[in-house]
C-alpha cells in the first residue's frame, strides 16, 4: 500500500518484511521477552488458547507457563497483580481480552496503578494491551474505544498505533517505559492492515506523532483506525477536488505531540480532528481546545470534529455502519472545511 512506500522513501533503506498489524504486535512482544527476562505476559486465554485474537499464539511453547500466564477470568486481579509485580522489578504485559472488559479493572487502574509514582516516586513499568474498536458487529460490549476514560486520568501513557511499523515500535517502547502504558490495538486492523517493518531493531518514542501524508490545505489530526480512513479521504480530496490534505497520526495520545499538531495546523489553517470513539467527551475535544488556544490566529475555519455518534454501539450491521465514522464521512467533512 501507499503508506509503506511512503515510509520506505522517508525513513529507512533497511531490509523490510511485509507483515500484518497483529504480527507486528506479536513480534514486538516476542523480541522484548527474548531480550529481558523480567518481561512476562498475563491475561485470559493467552497461553493454551493463544489469545482470543491469537496475538500470543506460540508464546507458551517458547517461553513457558512461568512467563505466559493464563489467568482466571478476573480483570481486577490481573491488573492489580501486574501492578504489584511491576513495583518490585518486573515488566508485566497484561492483556485485557477486549478493551470493553477493562471496566471491571477500572478501580485498580485509575486509583492504584496510575497514582503509584506520584505517591511513592516508585516506577510502575507495565503495559496493558487493549484490543479495541468497532466494525466487527460485536455490539455494545465488544466494540468500545475507551481511551478517553484514561486520558482524563493523570499517570498513564497512552498509545494507539495505526500501522504494523508503529505497532511494533510502540509495543517495544511501551515495555521499556517506566510508567504504566495503555496500548490500544484496533481489532479491525489486526489482519486488514499490512505494512513493511524492518528486520532490525527499532523503537518509536512515546509522545511522538507522525505525518502519514503531507499536505497544505487541511490537517486531519487522528489516530488508530481512522488514520486509514483519513488517508483514503485525502486521496479523494486530491484527485477529485484538488485539495491537499495532511494526515497527522498522533500514535501517542498521552503525552500528545502538540508541537506536531500545532505546526501542521499553523501550516494549513484548517483542521479536522477525528477518532473512532464517540464525539462527546472524546479526546478530540481536548485537542480542539489546545488548537484553538495555541493556533487561534492561524485558523481559517472553525475546528471540525468527527467520531462515532453519541449512542451505544448497535449490533445491527447497517446501524453500526451509520454509527461509525468512515472514509465517506471524512471526505464530506473535508469538503465542508475546504469551502472556507
Amino acid at each position, binding site marked *: 500500500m501507499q503508506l509503506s512506500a511512503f515510509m520506505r522513501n522517508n525513513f529507512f533503506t533497511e531490509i523490510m518484511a511485509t507483515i500484518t498489524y497483529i504480527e507486528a504486535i506479536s513480534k514486538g512482544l516476542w523480541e522484548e521477552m527474548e531480550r529481558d527476562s523480567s518481561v512476562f505476559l498475563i491475561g*485470559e486465554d493467552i497461553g493454551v488458547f493463544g489469545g482470543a485474537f491469537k496475538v500470543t499464539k506460540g508464546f507458551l511453547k517458547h517461553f513457558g507457563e512461568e512467563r505466559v500466564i493464563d489467568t482466571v477470568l*478476573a480483570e481486577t486481579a490481573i491488573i492489580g497483580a501486574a501492578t504489584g509485580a511491576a513495583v518490585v522489578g518486573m515488566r508485566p504485559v497484561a492483556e485485557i481480552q477486549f478493551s470493553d472488559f477493562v471496566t*471491571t479493572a477500572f478501580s485498580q487502574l485509575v486509583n492504584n496503578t496510575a497514582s503509584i509514582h506520584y505517591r511513592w516516586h516508585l516506577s510502575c513499568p507495565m503495559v496493558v494491551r487493549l484490543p479495541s474498536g468497532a466494525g466487527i458487529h460485536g455490539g455494545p*460490549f465488544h466494540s468500545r474505544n475507551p481511551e478517553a476514560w484514561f486520558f482524563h486520568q493523570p499517570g498513564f501513557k497512552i498509545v494507539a498505533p495505526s500501522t504494523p511499523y508503529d505497532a511494533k515500535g510502540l509495543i517495544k517502547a511501551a515495555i521499556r517505559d517506566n510508567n504504566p502504558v495503555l496500548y490500544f490495538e484496533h481489532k479491525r486492523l489486526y489482519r486488514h492492515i499490512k505494512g513493511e517493518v524492518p528486520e532490525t531493531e527499532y523503537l518509536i518514542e512515546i509522545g511522538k506523532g507522525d505525518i502519514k501524508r503531507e499536505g497544505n490545505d487541511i490537517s486531519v489530526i487522528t489516530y488508530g483506525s481512522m488514520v486509514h480512513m483519513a488517508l483514503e479521504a485525502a486521496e479523494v480530496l486530491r484527485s477529485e477536488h484538488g485539495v491537499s490534505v495532511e494526515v497527522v497520526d498522533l500514535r501517542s495520545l498521552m503525552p500528545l505531540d502538540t508541537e506536531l499538531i500545532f505546526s501542521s495546523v499553523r501550516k494549513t489553517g484548517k483542521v479536522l480532528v477525528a477518532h473512532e470513539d464517540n464525539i462527546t467527551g472524546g479526546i478530540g475535544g481536548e485537542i480542539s481546545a489546545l488548537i484553538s488556544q495555541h493556533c487561534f490566529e492561524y485558523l481559517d475555519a472553525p475546528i471540525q470534529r468527527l467520531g462515532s455518534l453519541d449512542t*451505544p454501539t*448497535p*449490533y445491527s450491521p447497517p446501524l453500526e455502519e451509520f454509527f461509525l465514522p468512515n472514509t465517506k464521512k471524512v471526505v464530506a467533512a473535508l469538503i465542508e472545511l475546504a469551502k472556507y
Partner: protein
Amino acid sequence: MKEEKKKTKQPRWSDLNLTNEKLIKMYHSMLLIRRFEERAAQEYGKGKIGGFCHLYIGQEAVGVGTIEALREDDYIYTSYRDHGQAIARGVPINESMAELFGKVTGISKGMGGSMHFYDIEKGFMGGWGIVGGHTPLAAGTAFATKYQGRDSVTICFLGEAATNQGVFQETLNMAELWKLPVIFICENNGYGMGTAISRAVAGDNLYEKAASYMMNRGAVNGMDVIEMYREISKAITIARTEFKPTFLEARTYRYRGHSMSDPGQYRTKEEIEEYKKLDPIETFGRELIEWNIVTEADLEKMDEEIKAEVLKAVEFADASPQPPLEMLYENVYA
C-alpha cells in the same frame, strides 16, 4: 422385597408430579434449542449472522430443566450464551432468529444480537456480554420482588469461569445476607473459553464457593433434565417460602467451540465424544420411549416439525427489514 421391585417399576420422575404432556414439552424444548442453534451455526457460516455467537448445544437440559420448573412471574438472567434459556422460556424463535440476523423484528430490535436477547413479557432479563456482570442485577431483581411483596424467584445462570469475577462473590454475600429469593445456576461446562476449570478454579467442588456464606448449595447432573428439574424445584420452594438463595452447580458440557471462531485445540475429540454419549436429548428421548410415553415415530415426527419451524424462522428473519437508521438514537434515553 416386593415393594422394592414395584418401586423400580416406577419412572424416576414419579415423585415430581410431571404429566406426560409436561415431559414431552421438556423434550420438545431441548430439541427446539438444538435445531435452532444448529441452523444458526449454518446461517453464521453463510454470513447471515455476524459478530459473536455462542452456542448452548450440549447444555440444553440445564436451561430446560430449570425453566420448566418456573412460574410465569419469575425472572431469568443469563450470560451471552443465551439462546437456549430464551427459547426454553418461550421466546418465539422467529424473533430470536431475527435478532441473530440483526433485524428490526428481533427481540432486541437488532440492537443486541446473539449475546443480548431480552423479553420482558416472558421475564427473560437477558443476555449479558460482560462475564459475571449480570449477577448482581439478579440479586437486585430478587430484592425488588421481595420488597414488593411478591413471591417470584429470580434465576441467574452463569458459567463456571464467571464465578472467578469478584462481583460474583460480592453478590453471593449480599444474597445470603439479605435473604434474597435468587437461585444461581452455575453451568459448569468444564471450560471458560479455552481454559479448563482445573486451571481456573482453586479447590475441587465449585459449589463450595458458596460455603463461606453458609448458602444452600449443591451439584446436579446438568446432562439430565429430570435431575435439573428436581433440584431446581427444591431451591424454588426454599426461595418462595423462606426467601433464601441457593447456589447450584450444574455439571454439563458444551459440544461446540466457545464461540463460532474457536477451533477447540485445548481439548480432545475423545473427550467430546465421551460427553456426547450422555447427550441430554438422546438419553431422555430413549427414556420416554421406554416408559411408553412416546414412540420412536412420534419423536421423529416432532423432529421434522421442529426443523420445518426453524426453517420458517430463518425465512422470517431473512425477509424482515433492517432497523431504520433513525432508530440508532431512539432509545438512548427513556
